[in-house]
């Protein structure tokens, strides 16, 4: 965080290489810190040892490998994915409040996953795709409702339609879980957004789809910048708006669905991070997208550290901590940006 603040004070003075290097260093430090924190503090040196010269006989090494490393990786990928999803949505809809959680995509994905586990879908590879279907349907519905509002799909009508969608799907999800007590036991913790280990199959497929989503996002970043300046401008610059919209939507849906499959609904990461990143790198999405990926990863690593330590030995759901941080930011955005 310190270096980020430094970078902000000298915008443009850093060559891009150095800036990127510093960001990666911040990420590495946050990553190591995240692994070291826990019931037993593990020094950085031991972590590095465990990562590069793994010794099966050392208890600390096992803890790092089996428990803490997977969790840290999860934070990195999900944080990056959600932040990029938020950045894409904010760019394309020109809505400073766009976020997979606020616009109902997360509730859609969550509902779909719950339905899937209710019917005990055996094939884990399907889970992220089912979640994607849920997110997509929710996104389309929210868009339709928001467009039908007088004045069109403004930031406010979108968020309010998203809130209605989330409330509806949330109630439906809870009702389903009450009907099936067994799924409730399994999914209760996941529902609040926690970085706990998921079945291997789901995790692998989710990581795969997260990578696909991130790659799409990087590929279209340049065109998103033009779209953020308005449809006419973008068309004038030779961008095929329809195709770009579809690409953005699929990237956002994939990223959201994979994140939800992994860690459950984790709100506000996609809202907060891109705003912070734009403060530093400006409005060129070639920088906003990778910047959001890095910042989102760091953000979620840090929030997860807070979630694990603030009430230790009890762990709070990470999704609650992101809400603690995100909700005031939302109030601030409503107050200043709309």
């Amino acid at each position, binding site marked *: 965080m310190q270096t980020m603040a430094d970078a902000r004070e000298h915008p443009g003075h850093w060559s891009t290489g150095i800036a990127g290097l510093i960001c990666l260093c911040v990420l590495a430090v946050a990553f190591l810190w995240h692994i070291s924190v826990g019931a037993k503090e593990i020094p950085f040196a031991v972590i590095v040892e465990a990562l590069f010269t793994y010794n099966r006989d050392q208890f600390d090494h096992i803890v790092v490998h089996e428990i803490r490393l997977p969790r840290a990786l999860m934070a990195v990928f999900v944080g990056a994915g959600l932040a990029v999803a938020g950045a894409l949505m904010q760019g394309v809809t020109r809505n400073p409040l766009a976020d997979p959680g606020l616009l109902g995509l997360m509730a859609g994905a969550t509902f779909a996953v719950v339905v899937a586990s209710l019917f005990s879908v055996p094939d884990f590879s399907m889970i992220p795709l089912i979640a994607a279907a849920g997110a997509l349907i929710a996104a389309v519905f929210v868009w339709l409702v928001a467009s039908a*509002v*007088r004045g069109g799909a403004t930031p406010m009508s979108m968020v309010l*339609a998203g809130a209605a*969608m989330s409330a509806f799907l949330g109630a439906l999800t809870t009702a389903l879980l009450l*009907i099936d007590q067994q799924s409730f036991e399994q999914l209760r913790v996941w529902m609040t957004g926690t970085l706990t280990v998921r079945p291997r199959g789901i995790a692998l497929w989710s990581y795969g789809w997260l990578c696909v989503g991130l790659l799409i996002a990087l590929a279209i970043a340049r065109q998103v910048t033009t779209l953020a300046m308005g449809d006419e401008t973008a068309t004038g610059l030779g961008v095929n708006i329809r195709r770009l919209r579809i690409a953005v939507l699929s990237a956002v849906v994939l990223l959201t669905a994979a994140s939800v499959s992994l860690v459950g609904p984790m709100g506000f990461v996609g809202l907060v991070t891109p705003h912070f990143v734009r403060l530093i790198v400006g409005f060129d999405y070639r920088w906003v997208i990778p910047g959001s990926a890095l910042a989102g990863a760091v953000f979620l690593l840090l929030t997860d550290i807070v979630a694990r330590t603030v009430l230790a030995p*009890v762990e709070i759901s990470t999704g609650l901590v992101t809400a603690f941080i995100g909700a005031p930011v939302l109030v601030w955005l*409503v107050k200043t940006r709309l």
Partner: protein
Amino acid sequence: MSLPKSSRAQVDDRSFSLALPRGGVLLLLALGVASVGATLLSVTVGSFPVSATDALLTLVRGAPSEMAETVVMQFRLPRALVAVVAGGLLAGSGAILQNVARNPLADPSLVGVSQGASVAVVTLIVMFPGMPYELRPAAAILGALAAALIIQLSSNRDSGSATLRFILTGVAVAAFLSAVTGAMLTYGDVDRAVSAMTWLAGSLATVSWDDVWLLSLFVLTVMPALCWASRPLRALRMGREIAISLGASFQRDRLLLVLLAVLLAAVAVSTVGPVGFVGLIAPHLARMLARTGPGLHLFLSMAIGGLLLACADLLGRGLFEPIQIPAGLVTALLGAPFFAYLLISRRGT
């Protein structure tokens, strides 16, 4: 200026009935009857079937069997009564907020007031389990007031799009407070957390006669305030500038009305949990069913709200027997699409 005779007669007729339109009064009566019907129905429905006649006998003379006595008197009757009264309070809160905020989307659960009450009650349940039950309403009121204060401070009322902004700020505050509640649940003892969670889902499964007495006492206490409210509501729903020029004490009246709305919602939430959307739907239904001034509209909304929550509870109990869906979920399933409908049909500003 001379006037046609007929119009004068019509007007005189109105003054006779204190400007209460007859249709509205009749509707209020009909709603009362419907609420009694819903209560009776709710007494008969459940895993232990009680016939309508047995239920009536139990209520009037004495139960035909001990089981019927327990089921009806201990569980179902207080539950049905609490549903009617709490639903009424939530709807009253919504009706007042909608008029004062001049916002057809206002509802205690959408603007964060219910969540404020929830945080306080969950804190009480989880952190101070030894505290007497009677403290819940007090805690709920404090929490709801705090939430209202936060929203007031953080929403910017100067702008043109204040209506939606107000709701958006409420959405944010509600998200924040829900997170606090969630954290409280992870922190606390498991048993207490589970009891708090049932309450949070808006379930009426645990209510008792204590709740009935408490709510009744409260309704009697605020009745004068509700009657008083009709007049300032008339002025305030016209907006600040017109209200002032009509001679209303705008600042004072708004403060008192918001306090009243918060109070109504908080007490309801403290017994049945943060049941959403009743306060949103009921005032609109009341307006669709009868054209009245804001005073009668307030009472109509309350009657409809009571009926709504009673029906929601009935649905939740009956649909997937033996599993009980909390009434709060049923109202959310009905209310969220209704919210979207209101959003779409809203007039542009």
